[in-house]
């Protein structure tokens, strides 16, 4: 099973981000992690790791925001130096283009995870499992 994040289009203007978080709060949806990628032309894409991505996407769309579910692969980060580099190298070798990647700390405050947004999550998962890199299951991701 492939996990999903919610990607939302938004303008870089005061109050726009709050409009989105207000919708999620009203529906009692939890955001686990969030990154904002901005373009130079005054807009950006907000990536949300939510506990119920399908529902989050649905309520945001209904509230008029362009929102989409995107496949992600989530891996546990270890403390060993160079692990991130090694992982990204694996993907680059396979010719897989990483759209976005962001890290967050788990609820236990001890381990960090890396969320990778790629076009073909299934292939990434396969490459990682062949290389012995542990990926989180969908349940683990949503219950972070």
């Amino acid at each position: 099973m492939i996990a999903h994040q919610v990607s939302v289009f938004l303008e870089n203007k005061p109050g726009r981000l709050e409009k989105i978080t207000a919708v999620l709060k009203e529906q009692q949806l939890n955001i686990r992690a969030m990154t904002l990628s901005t373009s130079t032309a005054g807009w950006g894409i907000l990536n949300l790791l939510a506990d119920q991505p399908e529902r989050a996407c649905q309520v945001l769309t209904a509230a008029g925001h362009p929102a989409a579910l995107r496949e992600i692969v989530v891996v546990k980060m270890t403390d060993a130096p160079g692990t991130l580099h090694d992982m990204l190298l694996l993907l680059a070798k396979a010719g897989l283009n990483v759209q976005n990647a962001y890290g967050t700390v788990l609820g236990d405050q001890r381990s960090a995870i890396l969320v990778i947004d790629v076009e073909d999550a299934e292939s990434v998962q396969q490459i990682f499992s062949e290389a012995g890199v542990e990926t989180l299951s969908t349940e683990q991701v949503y219950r972070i």
Partner: protein
Amino acid sequence: MYWEPEIEQLPLARLQQLQLERLHKTIECAGRSPFYQQQFASGGVAVEQLRHIDDIRSLPFTTKDDLRSHFPYGFLADPKDGPVRLHCSSGTTGNPTVIFHNQHDLASWANLVARSLYCAGVRPTDVFQNICGYGLFTGGLGFQYGAEHLGALVIPAAAGNSRRQIKLMQDFATTAVHTIPSYLLRLHSVFTELGIDPRRDTDLRLFVIGAEPHSEGQRRRIEELFGVSAYNSYGLSEMNGPGVAFECQQQNGLHIWEDCFVVEIIDQETLEPLPDGEFGELVLTTLDRQAMPLLRYRTRDLTRILPEPCPCGRTHRRLDRITGRSDDMLILKGCNIFPMQIEKVLMRFAEVGSDYLIVVENRNGSDEMQIQVEVQKEWFTGNMEALENLSRKISHEVRDEILVTPAICLVEPGSLPKSEGKAVRVQDLRKPQESV
């Protein structure tokens, strides 16, 4: 297939004869208004010297500034034979313009709208929902009386409240709708939100769209979304409102009712008449209005007359789609640009909505254009690179059309400004701001 078969198929020579007779009467009538009285006295208009309808070229033009500076009663020709209604423009700058109608004028107008609607295919069996502002705006009462005169069941739905509009369509099985094109695209998104498919779940079959310049691409998109045929309507309040020119079922140009209007196309620079087929400013003369006749009124709308006869058999000539209002033309880096040219390009991209805003400003001595377009919810994938490529592609295609490279700014759906329900297309920040 004709509302008035004889008039609509009148051979050219007889149509011109009728125009000449009516022009004589109109000049006589106009001469009773303070404005024309003064103009005729100083210029010396000899009615007997108008022997052919083309001799109308000897008369001076009337402009919007004339209407404004003689507000409110300067053009009223017959204060005794009572005007019974007025329509007034919003007048965001200076005096508004006002048009008066007596009972004859209103009956004539209603008949022209009925003829126009019939020409597009509206029949007495239709349920006609009129989605536009009533009150001072001519589209409300104009279509109301016209569609009633035709015999359709008319719902005076007025503007706004999309959910109620959809409810009305369902409750009364609306078959025909008149509204502005930009509203239909917004209405469609409400249909989608409610989970109602207008193609399947309504009886809609025919739309009349007007009052807002729009491209052929926008019309086709509307037809596709709703599963209807959409016909263009052209009118302006100075010439009553709707019912001046209308598309027939060929959807190829708008028949302008020449028994009631004299049509001229002039070169905007030289003010000389242009032959059929050439683009210029549309100049109109009323031929059947008594309370407030207007002679050679410069509409500031740019179009041309389609020279070929129409297969539908109507002899009244056709106007091409209105390219824009001369006031809308932007001059940027020496290029003349109409918003319609930009809209035509945007319509090729399903990923962006139909609303757009062109912002022109001067940055460090150079005029720059930015086009704001709305990201379509249905096409959004969350892929940043795809959106950046889309912006670049739009920018290139617009540049190929207008020779100026615009910056493309993607915005959230529904965030572009609207003014009185109509879409605002241009913000020229180089000029002192008008208060809207």
